[in-house]
């Protein structure tokens, strides 16, 4: 019979949920722990879904965060294929979709988000896919043999990575971005233009500033994407990478503060008693965003907030103050990012973009706030200290590749 009482109940089996459980056990926490997840799979790494899992280079066993034996050995119960639909914070009860209750002392909400779907006509046709879960990608991969033309809607990292893999698999790919440039939400214009050109050079029909009017199908399957200007693009598959909606409705319905996500303090505590939140859905005040309340959709944020949440649960409070980092693989380009570039007021290019190894340094009020490093791991590794110190370095010096970034980090520390 299903045990229904847990000292710590974790909702969500992504990086944040899994790492919260791992960190609790590592700290010696001896109480009962369960992870409840709408997904059917044990915790797995999400980034490969748009990279080497999609390409077939890494099978599922190789993206598991831990093997099945680990969760058994650590006595972490896995309640998979179950969705929490409501929470009663006073009674300390989370209700599943069949109305059955789970009782907790502490609830950790790590439910992440749900891939946004196209709201237009045809958005629900067969052949229209998201890239958020293993099930999404398995469905997509099962159809690939019969597909020659793919339209990717959305020029964020997921869309661009999927476009790169599908192009390498021999598909004819069209990528549509509504904004005037790809990566508009997360990177500066030089990086956007660089990636647009790389994709076009590989044969992707990449279009920016275009709006999808509807999807047209035959026998229930997508056959065409119709643009607002009337143009049509024939295809057998559509991949929608237009972001996620944070999965926090049960918490907000229970009275938790929040709007885009659920608000947490620096210890990952929501406004509800004994309920914490971590990862993509946790709206937190981030010092690397200039003290703004943001959500960060990244492995770094999920893992580091999980560590903070675990400490909060065992009473060893430590505030969240980790420098954001991120990576993206497209073709033979490895992008590594440290810091947050949103809100920057100047950029400096280090190196020659044509050489396909360079960095974009982002400044705000003359201080380094982020770096996007393409095939430039040295700058990524050394630039971290500049971001952490919010170092003030003159732009002409930053552009001088004969000077390694660690020189500036040493100066900034003085």
């Amino acid at each position, binding site marked *: 019979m299903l045990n229904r009482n847990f000292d710590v109940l974790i909702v969500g089996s992504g990086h944040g949920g899994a790492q919260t459980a791992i960190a609790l056990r590592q700290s010696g926490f001896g109480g009962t722990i369960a992870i409840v997840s709408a997904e059917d799979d044990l915790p797995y790494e999400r*980034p490969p879904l748009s990279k080497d899992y999609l390409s077939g280079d890494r099978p599922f066993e190789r993206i598991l965060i*831990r093997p099945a034996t680990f969760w058994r050995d650590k006595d972490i119960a896995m309640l998979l294929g179950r969705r929490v639909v409501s929470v009663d914070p006073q009674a300390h009860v989370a209700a599943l979709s069949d109305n059955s209750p789970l009782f907790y002392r502490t609830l950790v909400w790590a439910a992440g988000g749900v891939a946004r779907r196209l709201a237009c006509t045809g958005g629900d046709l067969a052949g229209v896919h998201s890239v958020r879960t293993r099930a999404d990608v398995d469905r997509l991969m099962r159809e690939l043999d019969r597909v020659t033309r793919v339209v990717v809607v959305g020029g964020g990292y997921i869309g661009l990575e999927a476009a790169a893999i599908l192009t390498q698999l021999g598909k004819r790919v069209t990528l549509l971005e509504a904004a005037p440039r790809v990566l508009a939400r997360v990177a500066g214009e030089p990086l956007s233009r660089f990636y647009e050109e790389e994709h076009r050079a590989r044969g992707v029909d990449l279009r920016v500033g275009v709006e999808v009017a509807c999807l047209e199908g035959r026998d229930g399957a997508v056959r065409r994407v119709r643009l607002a200007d009337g143009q049509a693009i024939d295809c057998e598959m559509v991949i929608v990478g237009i972001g996620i909606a944070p999965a926090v409705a049960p918490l907000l319905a229970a009275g938790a503060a929040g709007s885009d996500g659920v608000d947490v303090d620096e210890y990952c505590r929501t406004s509800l008693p004994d309920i914490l939140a971590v990862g993509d859905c946790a709206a937190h005040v981030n010092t690397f965003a200039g003290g703004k309340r943001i959500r960060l959709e990244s492995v770094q944020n999920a893992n580091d907030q999980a560590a903070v949440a675990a400490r909060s649960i065992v009473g060893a409070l430590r505030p969240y103050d980790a420098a954001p980092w991120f990576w993206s693989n497209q073709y033979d380009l490895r992008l590594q990012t440290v810091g947050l570039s949103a809100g920057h007021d100047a950029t400096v290019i280090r190196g020659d973009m044509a050489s396909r190894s360079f960095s974009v340094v982002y400044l705000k009020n003359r201080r380094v706030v982020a770096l996007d490093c393409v095939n430039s791991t*040295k700058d990524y590794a050394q630039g971290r200290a500049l971001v952490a110190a919010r170092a003030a370095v003159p732009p002409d010096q930053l552009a001088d590749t004969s000077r390694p970034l660690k020189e500036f980090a040493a100066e900034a520390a003085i």
Partner: protein
Amino acid sequence: MSALTGTPKLVVTDRSGVERTIDGEDGLSVMEIIRNAGAEEPFALCGGSCSCATCHVHVDPAFAQAIPGIAGDENDVLDGSSHRGETSRLACQIVFRDELSGLRVRIAPAD
């Protein structure tokens, strides 16, 4: 020595100093082998993309010559660690081979 017979082994010392002998698997990275054996610590957070250095290990000097050399990116990431030593490597970048049986690594402290 039984290094060339039976299941190849990897000897791992974790951050708290506990030593474990685990089964190796030819073709997997040392990071994957350690993770599959159930690492209790935050480990390999980036899944092997040479971005986080949480799989930083110190390789027993006796094996330092036996494993392929360090690549530029790996070297650059390790440069950012304050625990870098003579035989520091990223476990995600070392491909385990049967002939490496008996390889000993110690997981570096977290940065």
